[in-house]
């Protein structure tokens, strides 16, 4: 993703910081709002260069809608994965087959890669060990048969379908 203009990045940082301020104070007192706005302007002036590369384009309605929809989707995936791990722990035979697999991602932006890595880590059973360009190295609690192949492409394809693809549907739209 190419860089947006400085003004756009600055305004985007101000808006995000001001929203955080609203959540922090949880009050609509005009004094709090006014001071929060001033603080957001100041903090954004110092940090907008590292905070955002996309600028205001991040607030595109489609992206925001996908981001909101992603929350319940991700929570559901997290609950199911937790139950799955609980089942593996409680099962007398303890059916684990751990291994490190390589996945490829279609995401381009750094923030998207961060979100994907965190989504993978927060769903138990999978942990992101390292991200290197397009490659994700992931520790999996139960490596399925499809991924246990000698052929590199098949392995990567099977692993990606099991781990990254379900999240990428959303993250591709949100972060690009």
């Amino acid at each position, binding site marked *: 993703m190419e860089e947006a203009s400085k003004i756009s990045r600055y305004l985007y*940082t101000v808006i*995000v*910081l001001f929203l*955080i*301020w609203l959540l*922090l*104070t949880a009050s609509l*007192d005009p*004094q*709090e709002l006014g*001071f929060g706005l001033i*603080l*957001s302007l*100041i*903090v*954004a002036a*110092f*940090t*907008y260069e*590292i*905070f955002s590369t996309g600028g205001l384009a991040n607030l595109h309605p489609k992206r925001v809608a996908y981001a909101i929809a992603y929350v319940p989707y991700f929570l559901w995936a997290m609950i199911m994965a937790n139950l799955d791990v609980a089942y593996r722990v409680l099962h007398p035979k303890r059916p684990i087959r751990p291994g490190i697999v390589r996945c490829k991602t279609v995401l381009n932006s*750094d*923030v998207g*890669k*961060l979100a994907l*890595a*965190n989504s993978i880590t927060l769903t138990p059973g999978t942990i*992101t060990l*390292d*991200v290197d360009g397009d490659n994700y190295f992931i520790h999996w609690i139960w490596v399925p048969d499809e991924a246990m192949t000698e052929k590199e492409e098949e392995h990567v394809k099977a692993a990606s379908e099991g781990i990254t693809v379900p999240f990428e549907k959303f993250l591709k739209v949100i972060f690009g």
Partner: protein
Amino acid sequence: MLKRALAIISLLIIGYWLAQGLAGVPFGQDRMLVGQYYLDHVKEQTGAVNAVTAVVVNYRGFDTLGEVTVLFIASTGVGALLWRKKRERTAKTEGSIVLTTGTRLLAPFIMLFGAYIFIHGHLTPGGGFPGGATIATAFLLLYMAFTVYEIPHKAFEKVEGAVGMSYVLVGLIGLAIGGYFLFDWIWQTWGWGHNNIGRLFSGGFIPVIYTVIGIKVGTELSGIVDNMLKEEVRE
């Protein structure tokens, strides 16, 4: 072995001695002498809802000025101890993309939250020192995630000195208006914010002083981190 046994025995004796001393203090009973005065008068005398900050900044402002001085000396001392002509960051390993991108996203939030803490010193727990330490955490995070990151030294040192002087200046204005150092002129003479207790623009000069302390502590701790992370390089 003998050394360790002696150390344990002497620690036990000291502990027993301290426990004997504390056994005479009744916990959970009303033993407040001057404390009751603070609790009764804190609102109309200082305008602060948070009694701790009122005591720290208003009733006993000298102590806080002393603490700020101690911190300044600590920062200067670290700078003097580690002073070398040529010092650079020699870290080689850049953090992974997860760490660096996470830091980019978090740093502004941490700074905003630090500012939130010090500006609400008269209303909520916290104040200038926790707020400043929080802001320094953001800079520490930037230092740890990026191998080349450097704080803007010139600006930081100037800001640090300027806010330190403005604390004394606020006190001196009080001396001119009210007759003694650190007199709360905004509250007692101007009466600014009297009908406002509990909202943001109240508390006399507590928010002003805590903003000053927050910025000072933030820049100072960042400077200490910067000094300690750098290593001497030889040409």
